[in-house]
C-alpha cells in the first residue's frame, strides 16, 4: 500500500467515525449524561478486549516461555492485562453513574461540559500510558521514570502524571454528581454515592507517595488496592445495582435504599479491616494476623444474606422484565460474587493457610472469579440496559432477533472464567503444596512447582478456557453493537412490584 493510499483510507475512516459520532450525538432517545455514559461504555468494552488479548498472550507465555521474549515480555503483558481490567471497571462504573444521574436527580447534569472534557482527557491519558508501557519496557528506575514511564507499584503502575490526572478526573466526576444532586432531588442512593466518590478519589492518594521502607510502602499501597476494591467499588456497585433493580424489576426505592444502607454497614463492619489479610507477610506487627483473619472471615456474611433475600424475592415476586440479557448478567453477578469472593476467598484467607497460598496461582484463581463475578458482570448488565435505551427502549426479552448471540456470549464468558478459575486453583494448590510446604519457599521449590506436571497441565487448561472467554468477549462486543436494531416492540413498563 502506498503512503497516499494509506492516507486516503485513514482519512475516510476518520470521516466515517466522525459521521457516526455525529449521528450518535443526535440520538433522541438519550440524554446528555447518557450520551457521555455510552462514551465511557464504549472505551470500557475496548479495554475489556485489550484485557482479554493481553491475558491470552501472558497465558501463552506460561506454555511457551520464549514466546515474544524481549519483544513483549510476560511482565508487560501481565501489567497491561491487569491495568486494562482496573481501568475498564472504572470506565464502566463512571459511565453507569452518568447514565442514571439525571434520572435519579430529576435535573440535567451540572457541568456536563467538564465531564465530557474529563472523559477525553482520561481516554487520551490511558492511551498514552499504554503506548509508553509497550514502547518503553526496559530501563533504569528513577524519579524521571516514576513521573513519566512507570511508577513501579504492582497493579497501579501508571506514572505519577497519570495518577494526578486520574484524581483530577475523579474530582470532576465528583463535581458533576454532587452538584447535580445538590441542584435536583436528593435521595439515599445520592447520599451514599457522593460520600463514596470522596473516598474513591481520596484513597487513590495513598498510592501516590514514595517511601524507602518496603513494608511501609506496601502498607499504603494496599489502601488503594484493597480499600478501592473491597470498600469504595463495592459501595459504588451497590448504588448502581440499587438503581438497576428499580428500573429492571420495579423494586421499590424504600427496599433498595434500606439494603444499600445495610451493605454500607456490613462494609464498615468487615471489608475495611478485612484489609488485614494483606498485612500478614509484609513486615507489619503480628496483631494483623488476628485482625485480618477475624474480619476477613466476616466478609462472606453479606453474600449469605443475599441468598435469603434472593429466595424471598423469587418466592414472593416474579422476575418479569423486558431486558433478559441484563437480568441474566445480574444473576451471573450474584453467583459469581458468592463463589469468587465468598467461597474462593475464605478458602485461603486465614493466616494459618495463607502462609502457603499467598501469591500463588491460588490468588490468581480467586482474583479471576471475584473480579469477574463482582464487577465485570454488573458492568455488562448495565451495558445491556444502555443498549436498550439507545435503541429507543425496545423489547429485549424472549424471542429477540439473534437472541442466541447474548446467550452464547454469556455462556462462553461464564464457563470460560469458571474454567480458568478451576485450572488456576489446581495450579495454586500444587504450588502451595510443593513450593511452599514441602520445599519451604526456596528457589529450587519454586522451579520444582513450576515444572510439575499438574502445574503445566493446569496452565494448558487455563489457556483453553481463556480462549473460550475471549470468544465470549468478542461475541459480547458484537452483540452490544447489534442487539435491538430493527426491533419495533416497545419495552413493557415495569410496574411497581405487587406485595
Amino acid at each position, binding site marked *: 500500500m502506498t503512503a497516499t493510499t494509506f492516507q486516503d483510507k485513514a482519512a475516510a475512516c476518520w470521516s466515517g467515525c466522525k459521521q457516526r459520532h455525529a449521528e450518535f450525538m443526535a440520538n433522541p432517545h438519550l440524554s446528555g449524561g447518557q450520551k457521555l455514559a455510552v462514551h465511557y461504555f464504549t472505551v470500557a468494552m475496548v479495554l475489556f478486549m485489550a484485557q482479554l488479548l493481553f491475558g491470552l498472550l501472558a497465558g501463552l507465555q506460561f506454555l511457551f516461555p520464549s514466546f515474544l521474549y524481549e519483544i513483549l515480555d510476560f511482565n508487560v503483558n501481565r501489567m497491561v492485562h491487569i491495568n486494562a481490567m482496573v481501568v475498564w471497571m472504572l470506565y464502566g462504573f463512571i459511565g453507569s453513574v452518568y447514565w442514571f444521574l439525571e434520572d435519579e436527580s430529576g435535573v440535567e447534569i451540572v457541568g456536563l461540559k467538564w465531564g465530557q472534557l474529563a472523559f477525553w482527557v482520561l481516554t487520551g491519558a490511558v492511551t498514552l500510558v499504554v503506548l509508553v508501557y509497550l514502547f518503553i519496557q526496559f530501563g533504569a528506575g528513577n524519579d524521571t521514570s516514576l513521573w513519566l514511564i512507570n511508577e513501579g507499584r504492582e497493579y497501579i503502575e501508571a506514572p505519577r502524571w497519570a495518577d494526578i490526572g486520574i484524581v483530577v478526573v475523579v474530582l470532576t466526576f465528583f463535581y458533576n454528581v454532587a452538584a447535580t444532586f445538590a441542584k435536583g432531588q436528593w435521595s439515599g442512593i445520592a447520599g451514599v454515592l457522593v460520600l463514596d466518590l470522596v473516598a474513591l478519589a481520596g484513597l487513590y492518594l495513598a498510592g501516590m507517595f514514595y517511601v524507602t521502607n518496603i513494608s511501609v510502602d506496601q502498607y499504603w499501597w494496599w489502601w488503594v488496592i484493597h480499600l478501592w476494591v473491597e470498600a469504595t467499588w463495592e459501595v459504588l456497585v451497590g448504588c448502581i445495582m440499587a438503581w438497576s433493580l428499580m428500573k429492571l424489576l420495579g423494586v421499590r*426505592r424504600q427496599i433498595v435504599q434500606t439494603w444499600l444502607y445495610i451493605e454500607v454497614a456490613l462494609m464498615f463492619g468487615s471489608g475495611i479491616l478485612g484489609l488485614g489479610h494483606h498485612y500478614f507477610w509484609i513486615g507489619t506487627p*503480628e496483631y494483623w494476623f488476628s485482625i485480618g483473619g477475624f474480619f476477613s472471615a466476616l466478609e462472606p456474611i453479606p453474600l449469605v444474606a443475599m441468598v435469603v433475600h434472593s429466595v*424471598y424475592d423469587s418466592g*414472593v415476586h416474579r422476575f418479569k422484565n423486558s431486558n433478559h440479557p441484563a437480568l441474566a448478567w445480574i444473576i451471573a453477578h450474584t453467583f459469581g460474587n458468592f463463589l469468587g469472593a465468598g467461597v474462593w476467598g475464605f478458602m485461603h484467607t486465614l493466616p494459618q493457610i495463607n502462609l502457603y497460598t499467598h501469591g500463588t496461582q491460588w490468588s490468581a484463581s480467586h482474583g479471576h472469579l471475584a473480579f469477574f463475578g463482582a464487577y465485570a458482570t454488573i458492568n455488562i448488565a448495565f451495558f445491556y440496559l444502555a443498549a436498550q435505551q439507545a435503541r429507543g427502549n425496545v423489547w429485549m426479552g424472549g424471542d429477540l432477533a439473534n437472541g442466541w448471540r447474548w446467550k452464547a456470549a454469556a455462556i462462553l464468558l461464564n464457563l470460560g472464567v469458571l474454567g480458568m478459575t478451576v485450572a488456576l486453583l489446581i495450579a495454586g494448590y500444587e504450588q502451595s503444596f510443593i513450593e511452599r510446604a514441602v520445599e519451604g519457599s526456596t528457589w529450587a521449590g519454586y522451579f520444582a512447582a513450576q515444572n510439575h506436571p499438574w502445574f503445566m497441565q493446569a496452565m494448558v487448561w487455563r489457556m483453553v478456557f481463556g480462549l473460550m472467554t475471549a470468544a465470549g468477549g468478542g461475541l459480547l462486543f458484537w452483540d452490544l453493537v447489534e442487539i435491538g436494531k430493527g426491533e419495533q416492540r416497545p419495552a413493557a413498563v415495569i410496574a411497581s412490584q405487587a406485595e
Partner: protein
Amino acid sequence: MLIEPVALSDFFLSFFSAALIILLAALYAALFAWSKIAGRRSLGIAAWVTYFALLVCVALFSYVNHFSGYWLALSLLMALGYGWMPRFIWRLCAATHQPDHHHHQPGGHHD
C-alpha cells in the same frame, strides 16, 4: 508466633472445610428462607440438618487450623452468626417489603 500453620497432611481438609462452611451457610440460608415461603416442615428439617453439617465443618476447620485462645471466638462467631443471620435477614426482608400504599411507581419517591 501467634499462629500455628496448617499441617501438610491437612491442606485438603482446610480448603475443603472452608469452602463447605460458606456453601453450607448459603444452603442453610436458602432452605430456611424456602421453608418460610413454602411453609413445609420438611424444608425446615433439611435446613437444620444443613446447619448441623455446617457446625461439623466449623469444628473441623477450627481443628485443622489449630484454633486456640481467642481464635476460638471466630469459630463461635461462625457457628452463631451463620445460624442467626438468615433469621435476621428474613425479618428485615419482611419488614422492608411491607406494602407501601402511598407510592406505587417503580423507583418510588425521593427522600
